[in-house]
C-alpha cells in the first residue's frame, strides 16, 4: 500500500466523513461546518499551539541578545554557540519548542485543507472520487452529499475577492504580531518583507481557490490571532507609548529578562545576563527596534531588557553618561 493510500485511509477519509456528518448537525450549512471544525481542531491543539507560541516568543525576546553575542564572538563560533545555547536555556527558548509543535500540527492543517477541497465537489469527477471515500457504515453521509455550498454571500466552491482580502488582512495582523523585532537590519528587513508578502500571497491564492478554503484560512488565522494575544499579547501590532512592542508580561521559570543597551561603541566587554525577576510587571523589550533603542539609550523607564553589564558600571552612571 502506497503512503498516499495509507494517508487517505487513516487520516483523510475519516476527516471527510466527520466533516460531512458534522454538517448534518449544523443544519446542512457547510460554511458553518468549516468554521466549527476549524474551531474544534484549534481547541484540541491549543496546548501544542500555546507551547509553540511561548517558545517563539521567547526566541523573539532574545533576538537582540543573540545578535550581540554573535557580534561579540564573531571570531569564535564555538563560544558564540555556547553562549547562545546558555541564553536560550535560561530564557526557556528552544528551536525544538518552536518547530516540534508546529510539525505535529502540520498534518492536521493539511488534512483539513484537503478534506474541505474534496467535499466541495463541483465537477462530476469530484463526486465519483468522493463516493469511494464515504463510510458505508455511516448511512447519512451518502444522502448528505452534495453539501449546500452557499454560505452568507459565498458560493463555497467559487473564489471570492472580498474573502480573499479578509484572508490577507487577518494574515497581516497575525504576521505583525509574530514577526520578531530585531536589531539586525537584515533580519528586520526580512521580517518586514514576510509581513507584507505572506498576506499578499495568501490573498492572491485565495482568489484562485474555492472560497470554502479561504473561509478555513480566515477562520484559522482569526483563531491564531486570539491565541497569540492570550499567549503573548499584541506583539509588534500595537507598540506601547514608549515605542516598545505591546507585549504581555513575560516570565520564564520565575525570571524576567532585563535588557539594557550598550552605552558606548567600545563596550565590547559587556556581558549578557539574565537577572532574577524582582517585581511583576517588568517587561522585556523584545518588541523594540534597534533604532528605537538608539533613541532611548540610557533613558528607558524601569531599565528593562537584557543588561549589558559593564564592569564597574551602574544604571545611574550610564544615564549620566548617555
Amino acid at each position, binding site marked *: 500500500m502506497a503512503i498516499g493510500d495509507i494517508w487517505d485511509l487513516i487520516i483523510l477519509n475519516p476527516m471527510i466523513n466527520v466533516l460531512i456528518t458534522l454538517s448534518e448537525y449544523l443544519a446542512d450549512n457547510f460554511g458553518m461546518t468549516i468554521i466549527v471544525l476549524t474551531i474544534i481542531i484549534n481547541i484540541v491543539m491549543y496546548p501544542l499551539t500555546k507551547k509553540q507560541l511561548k517558545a517563539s516568543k521567547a526566541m523573539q525576546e532574545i533576538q537582540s541578545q543573540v545578535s550581540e553575542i554573535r557580534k561579540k564572538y564573531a571570531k569564535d563560533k564555538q563560544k558564540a554557540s555556547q553562549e547562545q545555547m546558555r541564553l536560550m536555556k535560561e530564557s526557556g527558548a528552544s528551536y525544538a519548542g518552536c518547530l516540534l509543535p508546529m510539525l505535529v500540527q502540520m498534518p492536521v492543517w493539511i488534512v483539513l485543507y484537503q478534506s474541505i*477541497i474534496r467535499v466541495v465537489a463541483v*465537477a462530476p469527477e469530484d463526486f465519483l472520487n468522493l463516493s469511494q471515500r464515504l463510510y458505508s457504515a455511516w448511512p447519512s453521509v*451518502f444522502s448528505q452529499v452534495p453539501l449546500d455550498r452557499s454560505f452568507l454571500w459565498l458560493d463555497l466552491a467559487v473564489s471570492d475577492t472580498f474573502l480573499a482580502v479578509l484572508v490577507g488582512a487577518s494574515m497581516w495582523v497575525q504576521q505583525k504580531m509574530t514577526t520578531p523585532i530585531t536589531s539586525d537590519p537584515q533580519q528586520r528587513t526580512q521580517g518586514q518583507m514576510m509581513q507584507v508578502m505572506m498576506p499578499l500571497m495568501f490573498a492572491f*491564492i485565495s482568489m484562485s*481557490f474555492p472560497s470554502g478554503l479561504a473561509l478555513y484560512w480566515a477562520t484559522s488565522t482569526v483563531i491564531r490571532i486570539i491565541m497569540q494575544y492570550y499567549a503573548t499579547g499584541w506583539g509588534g501590532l500595537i507598540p506601547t507609548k514608549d515605542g516598545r512592542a505591546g507585549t504581555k508580561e513575560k516570565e520564564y521559570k520565575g525570571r524576567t529578562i532585563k535588557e539594557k543597551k550598550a552605552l558606548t561603541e567600545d563596550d565590547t566587554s559587556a556581558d549578557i545576563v539574565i537577572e532574577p525577576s524582582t517585581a511583576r510587571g517588568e517587561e522585556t523589550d523584545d518588541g523594540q527596534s534597534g533604532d528605537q533603542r538608539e533613541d532611548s539609550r540610557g533613558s528607558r523607564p524601569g531599565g528593562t531588557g537584557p543588561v549589558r553589564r559593564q564592569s564597574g558600571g551602574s544604571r545611574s552612571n550610564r544615564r549620566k553618561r548617555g
Partner: protein
Amino acid sequence: MRSVIRVIKKYRGPLLIMAILLGGLALAGCQTGRGAIPRGWSGGTIDNGILFIGSQTGELVAVDTEDSSLIFSAPLETEAPSSGIFSCVPASSAVAIYGSPSLGDNLVYIGGYNGKIYAFSRDEFRQEPRWIYPRQENIGGAIVGGTVFDQGKIYFGADNNKIYALDATDGFKEWEFETGNTVWSTPVIDGNTLYIGSFDKKLYALNTSDGSKRWDYETEGTIVSTPLVYENTVYFGSFDRHVYALNTADGNLRWKFASENWFWARPVAVNGAIYVAGLDGIVYVLDAATGSKRMEFNLGNPVASSPVLVDNMVIVATEAGVVYALDTTSGRQSQLADLKERVSAPLAASQGKVYVHSSTGVLYEIEVQTGALREINISK
C-alpha cells in the same frame, strides 16, 4: 543580473518559505478533484453505421462503425479557463462534454459543460453548428446530462436547476421547468411523459407538451442516474444507496432495494430482470416486479458507466477500465477487456460491438463475441 542575485541572496529565507508554500498549495490544488478541470465523459450514440460522440477535446465527432474511420470532427468552441492559476487549468481549455449526443431527423444535438446546446447537421458534416441555444452567453449553469430527441423537441436538464424543451429545428425554447436543485440526470421519454432526476432528491414526471408536472417522488438522496422505463415502471438509483421502482402512472413506490453506495449508471432491463450497477462495484440483478435480488456480480470496482445489452449479454465497464460480459441466461461473468484506463462514460453498442470512451480520450471498439479490441483516437 548581479543585483537580482544579490536580492535573492538577501531575501533567501522568506523567498524559500514562500516558494515551499506556493509549491505545496499548487500541488495540493492539482491533486484534488476540485483542482482538476472537468474533462467530460460523453458516451456514443449510433445510427445508420455512424457513431456520434463528444470528445474530451471538446468536439462532436462522427465515426464510421464499419471501418472505425473518423468521418468528421467539429469543435463546440473554446472557452477561457474558469479557475485560477493554482488549479492546473491550461491557458485555454476545450468545452467538457459529459452527455451523449441525441439524433434528430437531420441534426445531431449535444450539450456542453459551458451551458450551451449545439445542433449540427448530421449529413453535411459542417464545422459550424446549425444553431446554438442560448444564442447569447449560456443558460447559467453547466449541462452534464445528455440530450433527448423526441417528436420534434430536444429535452435536457442543467446545473441551473432547470429542465428545458427546445424546438429541435431552430433551437427556440418551448418550455422550462424549475426543480429545487441542479439537474445532471439525462431525461427519458415514454409516451408523452418525461422522467428525470434532480439534486433536490426528487424524480420528476413532466408532460412533454407543456412541461407541467404530472407527479414527483422524493427519495433521500440526490438522483444523477438516468431512469429506465420498463413495463409501466420507472427504475432509477439514488445517492441514498437505493434502487427505486415507481409506477409510471402516479409515481407510487412499487419497491426499493438497498445497496452499499451511490448509483450513477442507468439500469438495463432483460427478461423481467433489472441489472443495475452501483459505485460499490456490484451489479445487482433484481426482479423487475418485486425488487427481490436474483443474483449479483461483484466486479470489485465502482461502476459509473451505464451498461448496454448486446444479444443476451449485459456489458459493463468498471471505473478501472475492466470490461465484463454478464451472461443473462447462464449468469456467467467473463472479462472482455482490460483497458487499464479509467472509464466513466456510458457504453454504446451496435452490431455485436461495444464502444467504450476512456478518460484518456480513446474510443475502444470491442467485439463481444471474440473480445477483439480496436483503438480509435477521437481526441485531438
